[in-house]
């Protein structure tokens, strides 16, 4: 074993990342599940790995837990190389997608399981289990068996079991997948509360972008085994690096457009799909005449009845359909070019009054800072 230089003991300096994933690749036979991922996660961070099924996010999580070994690269947790360290010796606990509660043990035995393996004194175990069950509000169910609990209760027991050993790193695999919407939202906030209370580093895997947006301080989007973009929820939503990220997080209208003017402060692109010109307030690194992609979020488009001044950032059309969602309405607008786009507007007024109706002729308009040009 390698000798550490003084001062860089466990804990490390503030600059040192808590989890360091060094260019790891995982192959299963001929398929590459995880492809050269390089990622640092800071202490006490709540990091979300977001991706569709088969994107490699669960494989990455399983490598952190020690259930799979990377084919290449290495993982460091708190400065320690995890290569060859079996799951049962890692300072990591995981909350499983299926919860994986031991069906033959009571709730309190499930939670105590990890502590019993660690040689903690009996009285201490009893106290910590009781405290943990109180935190997740399952104290009254300590003697129940898992099959006597509801989905939400099982989920809380699984969380308690994963947290009771006070791991440095907690991995959560689709933690809220099995819960209904209301319970999911409540639990999301509970998770965040527990996370800030205990200061544990969380890595959450999910395919649900809302869940990721709510929970994460930072998130990474995975596609086909690669980490496509890492950033805060706002970065990923407002500045997606490609069409995949733009589509994966939130709803979006995507257009193809040709670059006709490129200045440091602004750029203009002609779009056949809207039949007009996009004026964007940021420079684009491209050549004139190049075809590029534009992403325009539905809520950044305004609908107006009268033709606005100016020819740029506007597209005429007819409202095709309206979906009333309570807080907002989603309008499908058929542009004169035939292209269908989505527009969402908040329902500010309780009365129908001035509201749009299907068949109304409208102008879709947006500002220069609304659309984002994507290189790919």
């Amino acid at each position, binding site marked *: 074993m390698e000798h550490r230089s003084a001062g860089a003991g466990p804990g490390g300096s503030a600059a040192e990342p808590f989890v360091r994933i060094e260019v790891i690749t995982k192959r299963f036979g001929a398929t590459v599940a995880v492809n050269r991922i390089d990622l640092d996660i800071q202490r006490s961070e709540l990091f979300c790995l977001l991706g569709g099924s088969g994107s490699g996010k669960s494989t990455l999580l399983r490598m952190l*837990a*020690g*259930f799979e070994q990377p084919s290449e690269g290495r993982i460091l947790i708190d400065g320690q190389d995890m290569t060859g360290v*079996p*799951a*049962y*010796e890692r300072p*990591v*606990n*995981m909350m*499983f997608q*299926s919860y*994986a*509660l*031991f*069906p*033959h043990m009571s709730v309190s035995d499930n939670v105590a*399981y*990890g502590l019993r*393996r*660690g040689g903690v004194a009996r009285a201490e175990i009893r106290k910590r289990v009781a405290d943990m069950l109180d935190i997740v509000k399952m104290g009254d169910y300590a003697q129940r*068996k898992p*099959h*006597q609990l509801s989905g939400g209760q099982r989920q809380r027991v699984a969380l308690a*079991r*994963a947290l009771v*050993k006070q791991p440095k790193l907690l991995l959560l695999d689709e933690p809220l997948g099995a819960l209904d919407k209301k319970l999911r939202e409540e639990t999301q906030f509970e998770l965040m509360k527990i996370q800030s209370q205990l200061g544990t580093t969380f890595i959450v895997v999910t395919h649900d972008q809302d869940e990721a947006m709510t929970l994460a301080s930072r998130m990474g989007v995975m596609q086909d085994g690669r980490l496509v973009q890492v950033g805060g929820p706002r970065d990923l939503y407002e500045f997606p690096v490609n069409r995949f990220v733009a589509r994966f997080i939130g709803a979006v209208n995507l257009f193809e457009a040709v670059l006709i003017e490129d200045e440091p402060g602004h750029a203009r692109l002609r779009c056949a799909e809207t039949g007009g010109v996009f004026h964007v307030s940021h420079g684009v690194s491209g050549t004139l005449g190049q075809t590029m992609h534009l992403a325009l979020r539905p809520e950044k488009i305004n609908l107006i009845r009268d033709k606005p001044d100016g020819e740029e950032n506007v597209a005429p059309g007819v409202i095709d359909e309206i979906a009333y969602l309570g807080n907002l309405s989603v309008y499908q607008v058929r542009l004169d070019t035939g292209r269908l786009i989505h527009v969402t507007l908040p329902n500010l007024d309780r009365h129908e009054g001035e509201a749009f109706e299907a068949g109304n002729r409208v102008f879709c308009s947006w500002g220069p800072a609304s659309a984002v040009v994507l290189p790919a």
Partner: protein
Amino acid sequence: MSAQQRLNASPSPARRRKSWRLGRNSVIALPYGWLLLFFILPFAFVLKISLAEADMAIPPYTALVEWLDETTLTIQLTFSKYQLLLEDGLYLSAYLNSLKIAAISTIFCLLIGFPIALFIVSRPAHARFFWLAMVMLPFWTSMLLRVYAWIGILQSNGLLNTFLMNAGIINQPLVLLHTDLAVYLGIVYSYLPFMVLPLYAALEKLDPALLEASADLGARPAVSFFTVTLPLAVPGIIAGCLLVFVPAVGEFVIPALLGAPDTLMIGRVLWDEFFANRDWPMASAVAIVMLIVLVAPVMLVRARETATRDEA
């Protein structure tokens, strides 16, 4: 139109329900009928014979019910066979020895069968069938043949002794055939599949995530085995042990062919009473007591299972 339909339809649901209930009852009656025909009735016959006396007649036992004269019907129940069972040490030691041999064989079947079942479960799903077939394959030949094959292996100039002597490990052939060891070998070999299959069924249902969760919480593989795998395999262990133990107690062929002349097992005693002594009532009494000895533990296990299920 719809109202009329409803009117017309109104008597029919009751009739339909009735016929449905009839159908359901006849389906439920089927296994009961089977049980009555092939278990209860033969059992009653055997019970009847066990309460008679041996007789030089055809059939070789006395009738229980006889007309003494025109008006008097006598029922004569003889319990002497049961009394003899309790008093004669031979029977008691035959029972005990059978239980001992069956119990030890069951334990060995479990010890050998569990790793086999674990191995099969650890194979990828498409390969499991192959390994299960390997376990089942011996079943496709007659059990008698397989036990005879063991004679060929175990006898003084058999395969095993020849091999060991040629390899220079022993100079004198080992006495293997007609020993208790041969009986254990035969029983464990013959009944192993009955142990492996229920164990496989139980272990196959085990969610691999549970073992991962156990490892994740700090349990080494050996600890996970005893705290997770083993407790969750208990139904399979109970089923497998019963499937091996119950027929092994009454086993006749294996001790007769592989065992020593003095290997006392209740199956052989039964055979001797029936065919050598032509004492049908005694043989029947032996069979009845054996049944009680075997059914009692099964009932206990069932009662315990039901109790734990109610408690859960």
